[in-house]
């Protein structure tokens, strides 16, 4: 019986292997180099050169290799579509994979446009999964190219990694890919693509923006910010939170809803319009402002009773100041400060922080201090977890 069970499992695990599966591979060869020498990112060749002068060595190929080694059980079942040389070709060929190079690097040096073009081409070729090695910059480029059209998993290799699309390490990325390609994982989650807002950053303001969502095969153990089973799915948890919020809404209050899938599930449940990435305002169960900037928010709420419903974004627990800067110090003060803030978060999101507090970084140190302390975070229907907020 034992041997029988084992052979059954083997059969089951190989049952998808009759057809060759197409996988995309994008390696950003310069990812992470800036960080290792204390720079804030590696966006642009001038920084790469500076980094190399400071002694930085490329490491993404090494990380790609670690990931691809874990993928070796599928060697005969997959074909890798990639870009030339260090963008994936070298390493995939070195390990003996069946490789098709689908384009060429335009210009003298690898650029973001190469990543975007590669990703677009991979969807055209019918790749059912794109694996990439990089950081937030690479993630954004892939997001620009493919949106939600194809599942993606990232090997974390960048300096900035606010996005939630990365596996916890190269081997975990490979294992997750194996599980997904063998049909052992079917759930796909929309996970945040975040990056520093470069425009603001150049003007001296540190601002992380929520750019959108990528589709990521989901297994709690493998994806950053997703390793603590709670018993129900993220979606079911978000719905339970939404029902609680809706049940307790009153008609005299303006509700500012920050970006994110948890906050916007409330509006989705109410079947009203919403912007996933922006800040919306709800009053008497109707949306009175969509995707607002700070000035618009202030115009609507000034002098009104207001509550702010926010959720931590990305994998690091930032509640304010990352991806929702529209909810500015003025907006928070005008709403009534700490007591006007309603935090919603799925239990998994909290557990993933492993006890680390939520963070606020509104760019107003005094306000950040005032906002710190314990909150009753709504984590389900009629359920609140006491959780600490600190300033970042």
């Amino acid at each position: 019986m034992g041997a029988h069970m084992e052979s059954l499992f083997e059969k089951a695990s190989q049952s998808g292997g009759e057809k060759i599966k197409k996988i995309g591979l994008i390696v950003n060869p310069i990812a992470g180099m800036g960080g290792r020498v204390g720079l804030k990112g590696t966006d642009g060749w001038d920084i790469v050169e500076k980094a190399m002068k400071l002694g930085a060595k490329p490491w993404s190929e090494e990380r790609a290799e670690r990931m691809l080694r874990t993928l070796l059980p599928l060697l005969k079942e997959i074909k890798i579509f990639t870009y030339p040389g260090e963008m994936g070709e070298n390493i995939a060929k070195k390990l003996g994979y069946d490789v098709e190079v689908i384009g060429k690097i335009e210009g003298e040096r690898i650029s973001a446009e190469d990543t975007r073009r590669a990703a677009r081409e991979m969807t055209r070729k019918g790749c059912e999964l794109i694996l990439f090695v990089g950081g937030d910059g690479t993630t954004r480029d892939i997001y620009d190219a493919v949106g939600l059209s194809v599942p993606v998993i990232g090997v974390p290799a960048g300096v900035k990694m606010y996005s939630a699309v990365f596996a916890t390490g190269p081997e975990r990325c490979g294992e997750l890919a194996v599980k997904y390609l063998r049909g052992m994982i079917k759930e796909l989650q929309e996970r945040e693509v975040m990056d520093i807002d470069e425009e603001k950053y150049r003007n001296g303001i540190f601002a992380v923006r929520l750019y959108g969502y990528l589709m990521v095969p989901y297994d709690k153990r493998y994806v950053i910010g997703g390793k603590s089973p709670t018993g129900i799915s993220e979606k079911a948890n978000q719905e339970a939170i939404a029902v609680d919020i809706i049940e307790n809404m009153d008609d005299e209050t303006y509700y500012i809803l920050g970006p994110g899938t948890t906050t916007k599930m409330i509006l989705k449940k109410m079947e009203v319009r919403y912007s996933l990435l922006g800040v919306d305002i709800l009053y008497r169960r109707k949306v009175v402002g969509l995707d607002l900037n700070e000035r618009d928010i202030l115009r609507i709420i000034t002098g009104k009773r207001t509550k702010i419903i926010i959720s931590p974004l990305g994998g690091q627990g930032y509640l304010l100041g990352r991806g929702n800067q529209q909810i500015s110090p003025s907006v928070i003060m005008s709403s009534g400060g700490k007591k006007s803030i309603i935090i919603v978060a799925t239990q998994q999101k909290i557990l993933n922080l492993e006890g680390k507090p939520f963070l606020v970084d509104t760019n107003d140190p005094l306000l950040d201090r005032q906002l710190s302390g314990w909150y009753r975070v709504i984590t389900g229907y009629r359920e609140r977890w006491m959780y600490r907020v600190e300033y970042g």
Partner: protein
Amino acid sequence: MGIVKLRKNFHQSKWDEPIIFELSTENERGIHVPPVERDIEESSGNLETLIPESIRRKQPPSLPEVAQLRVLRHYIRLSQEVLGVDVNIDIGQGTCTMKYSPKINEVLVRSRKVTEIHPLQPEDTVQGALEIIYNLDHILREISGFSRFVFQPGGGSQALYTMASIVYRYHQVKGNTHKDEIITTLLSHPSDAATAKVKGFKVIDIPPDQETGLPDMDAFREAISERTAGMIICNPEDTEIFNPHIKEMTSIIHEVGGICAYDQANANGLLGIVRSIDLGFDLGFYNLHKTFSSPHGCGGPGLGAVGVIKELESFLPIPVVDYDESGKKYYLNFDLPNTIGKVREFYGSFPVILRAYAWVRVLGEEGLREVAKVSIINNNYVMKKILNEVKGASISFPKTEYRVSQVRYSFKKLADEAGVTVEDVIRRITDFGFHLWTSHHPWIVPEPFTIEPTESYSKDDLDEYVEGLKTITQEAYENPERVKNAPFNSVIHKIQDMSFFEDPEKWAPTWRVYLRKHRNQEVRK
């Protein structure tokens, strides 16, 4: 030194058995009920007139139609597909206290004096049964310090629901309509929160302090307000660290007019040592199954005995058993002015009460204390052994050195180092005929598992169990695929896609729901 033998050749029966509904064939019958004899019908009246019209079915229920032999084979097969309480060392059932249920108690409950009584019989004819209920109530009063116990709830969660209902009713009677929040802790049993929510309360969970594992007292103080109706918690919590702040917590709750309810499902290590009343609790429950040796809920009917202080007696579910001094008889007292009503029919599962009563009477006061002491010693012995010998295992909140009668461990190190998760180990452990760990969501402790050795198991049993863990973890490091693909000898198998498990929309608690959700068929009720 006895025999420590890990049974590596364990092999469980496995039948590819459909569920009973799938075996149904139209008009097949297991038994033909003979028609009512004319004399009987004439004296008692027509069957239909005996059942009130309001509860008469319009059409027959959709029960499976199966012949006797097929039914027999079906259930015998299923009975072979269990781990079996009498064949395995079940100390790792999870958060449930598993212990030996003395067989003599089964003889007692199978006596005709028990099997042939009915809860609707006149009180005069069941005086013995009422006396046993009455006496057990008094014994539990001694153990806890509470003023009165009821036995109506059919298990731990129903007892928790009863307690939440008492808290609710108490504030209703007092006119405290603003009190709508219940405090609990994240490491208390999930039913503490769930039952309070069902009752309509908002539940505030207190997280553990990251260092000590005890409820964070700053968070606790912040959570308390005029809206606090009460607190429902375990102590020790599932980590089994005894809470030294518990009296401070109960008094803070009392200061705002709240009520403190004690989930004593983890009481095994406290019997005869700690009284609930001395910790400031106003009500609490014991599981007569588990702690008081009646078989565990999945292996027999359960019972959560709820006890309260004097001031809350009038809120208990009815009836309670009392003794009439003048008439010298036991009777059912329905006259509790503030009663929450009923949470279950009648007044408690009598066989469970009887087993618990027999168990306590055999042990006596000293014996009960011995139960607690041995279970604590066994637990700390196993803990040391696991930490020293099982690679990849650790305890939660290691700064707190000792635990009461169970430990929440973690296989995080194993998962990080070998890529083998606690869920893999759970499946593999069934290949040795051991019970598997359950009830750990949400995972406050990563890769969690809980072991509660209780007083029943010998040193040899404990050594054998740890030997099993050692074997599996060694295998995890040397041949991880073996553990990841387990089990091989058990009736259960590895499920590839677990996502349906977490999606309430896909849950099918009954056959009818299954047909509706998964086969798109409507079945009559």
